[in-house]
């Protein structure tokens, strides 16, 4: 909402030394936030209004212009092709100052100018300013007097303040509302600008035969009057200028007055051309599907049941609270006007405005929720201005549909509570003073809330009012005096932070990706359409198809990140993400929330990293949490197309998958711009939580020496060393089995491999004797040959 400082100053006498910065800073600090402010034009000196008396063409497109200044006539030579006799223009006299420069009036082509006609730029304004001709000549409305100081006439050097009004304060979408805030902020009285002469309206059931019928819940009040003997002409200059400064273009007296009252008091108003109504009733109802209306902006709107309309009993004549219809609009021939001051339900207006993609000054006010009693206040001012500006004649009879009256809010004033909420000890009298300044009447400890402060409902609201004007900056700073609370992360939260730190220590960069995606990405990683991963939570109103589903796997986001790095020619990328995937989408059908599971997702492309490096890093992380102290298995991944079936593994405990990792399937890689060696993996965090062991129990160090024996075997290539090691560790005295050589190729049969292990044997009870060692080794060779079909080489 834009308001000029000069307009506000009509209400509040600010001290001379108060600067614009003081105004905006202090208003912001009391809650009327200033978004920005701009200076209106540049003050000038010795520039006056003058009427063009005569225009005589001269050489080179120049004209000799005679200007009437009431007491004198002056000559100017200028090239202003669109200047016309009768124009009222700004004229700089000798000694004038515009935009800080002295103006010298000189001789042009042998003719001496006695003055200079100012360009709009000379006043610090731009071509968008109304009343500017294409040449840049400012041509004042003709009710502007001549020989007046232009700086004063335009209010140059005024400030246009753009306020950001919070949605709870629709009363501040008006000059009156902001002026009130300004007055309290500077501890000054707020003047009554117009005599609120209650028109003593007689509420009747028809005015001039026109009745009002409301058929929708969305209209809470409809106040209607009729102006007769209307003469359409420009509105008074002062009114036009104020509207211009608020960013509203003047149109004609009738339209300008409705806009002016809207800006002044905050109630949107509408004027219909009575003669184009073609009926004697106003019916407010929801539109019918298929109905259309051409609005004032010349666009035909398709309406449906969600839109509220004003009708003439037959067809829509306005989209209620948003915009009027073109057919019933005011034009120069209008001589009788139906005036509307209504109250509509905010959600209805907001929905219609959104649906029609049409936001107007009216809709932005209505959608905040206006006070119902505001309609009569606005009608008062409307009638006042129509009469006083000679626009038309209004009677005292109005139609006022008003069934659900606005309730009068009363709040019991609990001074202790007010202070307790904000942590102050403000004396009761000071609290009373602030509340009364706001317009609250205090009767027997009860605050009677003014009708337009619909935001004040409970004692905490009064606390805020007191705090605002007492000064948020003056509130003391204390710390909560609760009983001792223990600040800590939960065990799971600690694990979560630790696992992230471990990933980083292992060289992975942490990434953040979007948790929604498109199902195309699942196709891109060859996910089977029957897979549970394909069953994703769907967003009903996604931003775009790209963000339509909640992800069930974070691998696609990871691959995108890798791809983005690769296409940007980054030599290597080692990434991880700790974030959620969203499972059990079917819960939604039952009205329940889904399962949100944290996973750690890995992705690597790097020439120097191979499968074994990656596996070791995953194991390092799992070992840190002692997850692998459990009885676990390593299995090939056969059911996930995203992995290379021969170069990928899962670690499983009791059927719970702890981690999956391996090379990206070359088939999937075809769908991406990625190098040859890409590794991906997932750690299922919930299973870390399930199988980790944080209990530290010291195990006595061995007292007896270990012996080492090497053994070499030839075995089927398919056998996993993990299975061999796991089995051998069950043999008595075997403490550790360590693979130190694998060989395939010459001298080894096709489909076989040679493996060499070092076996560490130890007893906790004694030093092992040769015979016990030999027995253990015999057991080992037996197991290897019988259970693993291995040939013992040594």
């Amino acid at each position, binding site marked *: 909402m834009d308001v000029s400082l000069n307009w506000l100053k009509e209400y509040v006498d600010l001290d001379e030394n108060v600067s614009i910065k003081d105004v905006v800073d202090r208003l912001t600090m009391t809650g009327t936030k200033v978004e920005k402010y701009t200076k209106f034009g540049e003050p000038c000196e010795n520039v006056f209004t003058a009427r063009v008396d005569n225009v005589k063409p001269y050489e080179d497109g120049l004209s000799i212009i005679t200007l009437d200044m009431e007491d004198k006539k002056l000559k100017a030579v200028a090239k202003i092709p669109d200047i016309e006799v009768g124009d009222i223009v700004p004229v700089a006299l000798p000694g004038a100052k515009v935009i800080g420069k002295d103006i010298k009036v000189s001789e042009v082509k042998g003719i001496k100018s006695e003055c200079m006609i100012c360009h709009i730029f000379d006043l610090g304004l731009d071509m968008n300013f109304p009343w500017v001709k294409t040449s840049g000549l400012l041509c004042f409305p003709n009710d502007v007097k001549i020989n007046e100081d232009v700086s004063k006439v335009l209010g140059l050097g005024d400030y246009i303040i753009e306020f950001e009004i919070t949605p709870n304060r629709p009363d501040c979408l008006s000059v009156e509302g902001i002026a009130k805030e300004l007055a309290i902020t500077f501890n000054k009285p707020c003047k009554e600008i117009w005599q609120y002469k209650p028109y003593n309206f007689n509420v009747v059931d028809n005015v001039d035969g026109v009745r009002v019928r409301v058929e929708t819940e969305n209209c809470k009040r409809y106040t209607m009057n009729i102006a007769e003997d209307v003469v359409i002409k420009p509105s008074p200059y002062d009114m036009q200028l104020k509207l211009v400064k608020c960013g509203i273009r003047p149109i004609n007296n009738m339209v300008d007055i409705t806009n002016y009252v809207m800006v002044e008091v905050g109630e949107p108003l509408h004027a219909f051309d009575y003669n184009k109504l073609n009926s004697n009733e106003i019916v407010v109802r929801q539109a019918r599907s298929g109905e259309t209306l051409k609005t004032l902006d010349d666009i035909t709107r398709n309406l449906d049941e969600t839109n509220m309309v004003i009708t003439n009993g037959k067809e829509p004549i306005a989209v209620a609270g948003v915009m009027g219809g073109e057919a019933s609009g005011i034009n120069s021939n209008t001589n009788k006007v139906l005036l509307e001051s209504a109250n509509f339900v905010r959600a209805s207006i907001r929905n219609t405005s959104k649906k029609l993609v049409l936001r107007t000054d009216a809709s932005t006010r209505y959608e905040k929720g206006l006070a119902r009693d505001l309609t009569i206040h606005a009608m008062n001012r409307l009638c006042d201005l129509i009469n006083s500006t000679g626009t038309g004649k209004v009677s005292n009879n109005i139609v006022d549909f008003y069934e659900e009256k606005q309730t009068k809010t009363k709040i019991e004033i609990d001074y202790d509570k007010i202070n307790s909420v904000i942590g102050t000890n403000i004396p009761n009298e000071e609290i009373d003073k602030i509340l009364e300044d706001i317009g609250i009447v205090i009767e027997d400890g009860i605050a009677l809330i003014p009708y337009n402060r619909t935001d004040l409902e409970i004692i905490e609201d009064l606390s805020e009012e007191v705090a605002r004007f007492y000064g948020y900056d003056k509130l003391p700073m204390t710390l909560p005096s609760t009983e001792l609370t*223990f600040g800590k992360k939960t065990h799971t939260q600690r694990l979560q932070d630790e696992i992230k730190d471990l990933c980083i220590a292992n060289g992975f960069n942490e990434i953040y990706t979007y948790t929604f995606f498109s199902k195309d990405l699942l196709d891109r990683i060859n996910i089977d359409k029957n897979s549970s991963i394909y069953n994703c939570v769907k967003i009903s109103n996604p931003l775009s198809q790209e963000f339509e589903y909640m992800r069930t796997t974070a691998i696609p986001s990871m691959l995108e990140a890798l791809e983005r790095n690769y296409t940007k020619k980054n030599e290597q990328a080692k990434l991880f993400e700790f974030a959620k995937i969203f499972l059990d989408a079917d819960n939604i059908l039952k009205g329940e*929330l889904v399962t949100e599971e944290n996973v750690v997702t890995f992705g690597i492309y790097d020439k120097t990293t191979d499968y074994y490096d990656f596996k070791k890093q995953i194991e390092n992380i799992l070992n840190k949490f002692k997850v692998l102290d459990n009885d676990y298995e390593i299995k090939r991944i056969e059911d996930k197309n995203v992995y290379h079936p021969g170069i990928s593994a899962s670690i499983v405990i009791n059927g719970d998958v702890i981690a999956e990792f391996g090379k990206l399937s070359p088939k999937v890689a075809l769908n991406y711009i990625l190098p040859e060696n890409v590794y991906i993996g997932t750690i299922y965090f919930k299973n870390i939580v399930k199988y980790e062991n944080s209990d530290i129990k010291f195990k006595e160090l061995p007292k007896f020496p270990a012996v080492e024996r090497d053994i070499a075997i030839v075995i089927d290539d398919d056998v996993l060393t993990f299975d061999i090691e796991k089995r051998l560790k069950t043999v008595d005295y075997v403490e550790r089995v360590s693979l130190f050589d694998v060989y395939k190729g010459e001298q080894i049969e096709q489909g076989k491999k040679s493996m060499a292990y070092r076996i560490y044997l130890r007893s906790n009870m004694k030093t092992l004797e040769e015979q016990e060692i030999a027995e253990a080794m015999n057991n080992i060779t037996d197991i290897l040959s019988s259970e693993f079909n291995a040939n013992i080489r040594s």
Partner: protein
Amino acid sequence: MQEVLNTLSNNAINLLENVKNSEELEEVRVKYLGKKGELTLVLKSLGSVAPEERKQIGMLANDIRKKLENIIESKKEELKIKEVEEKMKSEKIDISMSKQNLNAFGHKHPLSIVIDDIKEIFIGMGYSIAEGPEIETTFFNFDALNAPLDHPSRDLQDTMYITEDIILRTQTSPVQVRTMLENKPPIKIICPGRVYRSDSVDATHSPMFHQIEGLVVDKNISMADLKGTLNMFAKKYFGDKTEIRFRPHHFPFTEPSCEVDVSCFVCGGKGCKTCKNEGWIEILGAGQVHPNVLIAGNIDPKEYQGFAFGFGVERIAMTKFGVSDLRYLYENDVRFLSQF
């Protein structure tokens, strides 16, 4: 005989003094103290010495042996050190080279850095970390937070809906009510988390972003407590000289409400590019928990009061690290990531 021994001793000492390495030292040792060494032979031949001289000569020979042994021992130490020193001299490498393939540490994402640092400060002040679902009910996201059905934030344009009643949470505030329902005052929590709004991706917007919510509920918790808490936070996080400023504002779930600015940590409040010459940077919204929210959390507003606050993590990360475009945070370019 005595003279022979003294000459032998002098010769040996002389030789020992001039040995250059441990091999030479060993040679000298063998020459005099070896099985067939000169001094050994003298000692072995003591039997043929006249009995009256024997004791004297024996003592002398033994003294010489001890003396030589001592010299050899110390010479050995000396040579060992010398040899290590020489070896060290020859072992000079280009200390400016690094191994190419060694795993460097990874980097924490800037959003995590901000979240972790803020968590640490509040944990130090006795707060716990609360969590809640990202796919949330409209009850917790709106109704319980005093945002009625006709509240603008519920619009389709702002909120991503799954069904009429289930949405992607638009704020971390629903965790407030979830926490209140599960815990009795005193409650002191913060809740970092992902939130979603229907904003197209641009330099300052993202349909997914992060917030940190804070909530304190107990008897007599006041806005002054909120101010003191945030002041302490600001000083810990942005530096001791940081000041805070409360400006009135409006949120449906707090009353009174405020927006909070910190004095610009780049220019100290004088005005610069970071603070757009304001001297202040807006960092969060806050206020006293609205009684309707306490009621939704099954807490009696007559007995208890509380405050709540909420940060935008991206905004803090961007101002703190000088990140010019929000999209960098989600593009995950390693050239970006490795700067943190």
